[in-house]
């Protein structure tokens, strides 16, 4: 990968982290109603997106994919508008929880808050492409929690029968809110589902940008060759509580939290890039400053914006 591209990606990671922190703070100040943070999942999302083509592929995402949305071209202002429920929110017109809805520029769809419903929907998206001989790939994201839902099983089974070009990408952070993996399943890896459907299941370290990228790339190739779906399980950490409403010290041990912090993917990526000579300490400092200023300017702007008017509440409903 080109150095200049890696720098851009690194910058997206920084923006994502800073913006995510800002939104969490806005919530603490009572200015944003709720936030689910993507902190800890950033590098996994960036590595994955890099292997896809936003002008061709379909992205069915879920609420923890703040970074992915930025990587696909959503701007910081748009993200803020989304959390602050301001007029012109690109995802849902301030109707839905932040991060939900669909995107006007990319085929990025995060339709509902109901965990796992996107999985069969993604299979349908891929089926339509196959029927129309399109060579797009559909990637659908979900958490470890979602893997327990019946819909997850039905989706993987259906996709495999028809060899559909779909990638099941699980961001396994070890928790569904407070429920740890061992209470969710009696296997260590979600990728071990693969033999139930006769599709490859690959587990990968979600803090390693390059592994994620390579793994996703292979799955994309498989899909495009008509070889069918792939399950990718990316092991990541959820650095913050489930949402701003949660307090994870209630259910996570001190040592668990300590271990998790060591796996913060941004410093790991940073060190990789330093080793590769892509960035140095000084670059980092400058970029971090720039990022803070982007976040500040965006926040100031969006905070001044209006809320949507009452009558647009009727738009796109049965009453309109």
């Amino acid at each position, binding site marked *: 990968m080109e150095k200049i591209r890696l720098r851009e990606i690194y910058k997206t990671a920084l923006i994502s982290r800073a913006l995510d922190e800002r939104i969490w703070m806005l919530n603490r100040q009572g200015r944003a109603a709720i936030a689910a943070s993507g902190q800890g999942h950033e590098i996994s999302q960036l590595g994955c997106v890099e292997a896809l083509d936003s002008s061709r592929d*379909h992205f*069915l995402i879920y609420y923890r994919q703040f970074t992915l949305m930025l990587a696909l071209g959503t701007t910081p202002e748009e993200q803020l508008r989304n959390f602050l429920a301001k007029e012109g*929110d690109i*995802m*849902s*017109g301030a*109707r*839905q929880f932040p991060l*939900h*809805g*669909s*995107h*006007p520029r990319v085929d990025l*769809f995060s*339709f*509902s808050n*109901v965990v796992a*419903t996107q*999985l*069969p*929907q*993604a*299979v*349908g*998206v*891929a*089926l*339509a*492409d196959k*029927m*129309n001989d399109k060579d797009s790939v559909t990637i659908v994201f979900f958490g470890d929690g979602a893997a327990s839902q*019946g*819909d997850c099983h*039905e*989706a993987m*089974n*259906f996709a495999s*029968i028809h060899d559909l070009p779909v990638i099941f990408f699980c961001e396994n952070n070890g928790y569904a809110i407070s429920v740890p993996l061992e209470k969710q399943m009696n296997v260590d890896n979600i990728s071990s589902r693969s033999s139930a459907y006769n599709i490859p299941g690959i587990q990968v370290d979600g803090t390693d940008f390059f592994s994620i990228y390579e793994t996703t790339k292979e799955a994309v190739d498989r899909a495009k060759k008509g070889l069918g779906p792939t399950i990718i399980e990316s092991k990541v950490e959820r650095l913050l509580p489930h949402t701003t409403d949660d307090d994870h010290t209630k259910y996570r041990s001190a040592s668990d939290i300590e271990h998790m912090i060591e796996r913060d993917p941004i410093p790991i990526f940073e060190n990789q890039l330093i080793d590769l000579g892509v960035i140095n300490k000084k670059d980092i400092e400058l970029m971090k400053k720039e990022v803070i200023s982007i976040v500040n300017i965006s926040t100031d702007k969006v905070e001044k914006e209006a809320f949507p008017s009452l009558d647009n509440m009727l*738009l*796109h*409903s*049965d009453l309109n």
Partner: protein
Amino acid sequence: MSVISVIEAVRKTIFMEMKRDKKIFILGEDVASRGGVFLATDGLLEEFGDQRVIDTPLAESSICGVAIGAAVNGMRPIAEIQFADFVWPAINQIVGEASKIRYGTFGKKKCPITIRIPYGGGVRGGLYHSQSIEVLFAHTPGLKVIAPATPYDAAGLLRSSIRNDDPVVFLEHKKTYRLVKGEVPDNDYSIPLGKAEVKKVGNDITVITYGLMLHYVLQAAEECKHFGINVEVLDLRCLRPIDSETIVQSVNKTGRALIVQEDTRAISVSSEVAAIIAEDCFFDLDAPIKRLTPIEIPPMPFSPIQEAEYMPSKIKIVKSIRELLEI
């Protein structure tokens, strides 16, 4: 114009629509080589091939979830749920998801799916092949719910449903499938969604109904002539939206209303129709609004005599009409 049954009207309409629009495809259990357990899709596999007539695994949530995904990506799927009683696993995808896609994306995505569901009883189906399942769908903003009673309406409304850009729950009464025959034009006429129809004009009382019950009501109306009662019969045809205008107009004219339905009573279509009348026809009403429905037990026993007792019948309808008119 030819005289055909409801099931033939459904099959023929799907056939014609699939010929017209390549974006339409069918998915469901046993829809391909079996042609559907009621034969609603018979012959379609041969005509359109297995890319457009897809036998799915036995998993209703994915049938609807996959249909939603395909619809959002430009297709116009027709999903078949084999029996209404088995639609419950798919509620999350239909009521939770499909209904809110247009609203929840601020109009950026649409979800043109038609979900065909054979429902209703009187076919010795017992508790699990007889249910009326319209209530939740007809309650849910964002869905359209259609329940035709005649071949003409079935074809005309199915065509509109398939062409509609919102998710449509299309309810076909199993007992009407072969029992009810009627004239259906050969062209591709359509009937707008959301319009009730006066199936028989009268002055003394309005009987409002839908589905299989329409036929019993029409028979009862005929019999009521012997008692000098001129019944107006209104077929709702669409359960969401409910055509309150046509209801109110009719009841304001007759001054009396009876609602007949196969579904159980509490919080049902009959409740809504009564509520509409109670609000909008109050000053023209000459009598309480009555409802004739089954009793509050799970629908409906396998026992033939109990099943018959459970359902509203011509005799019970005549009796209710006469009571309401005190004749």
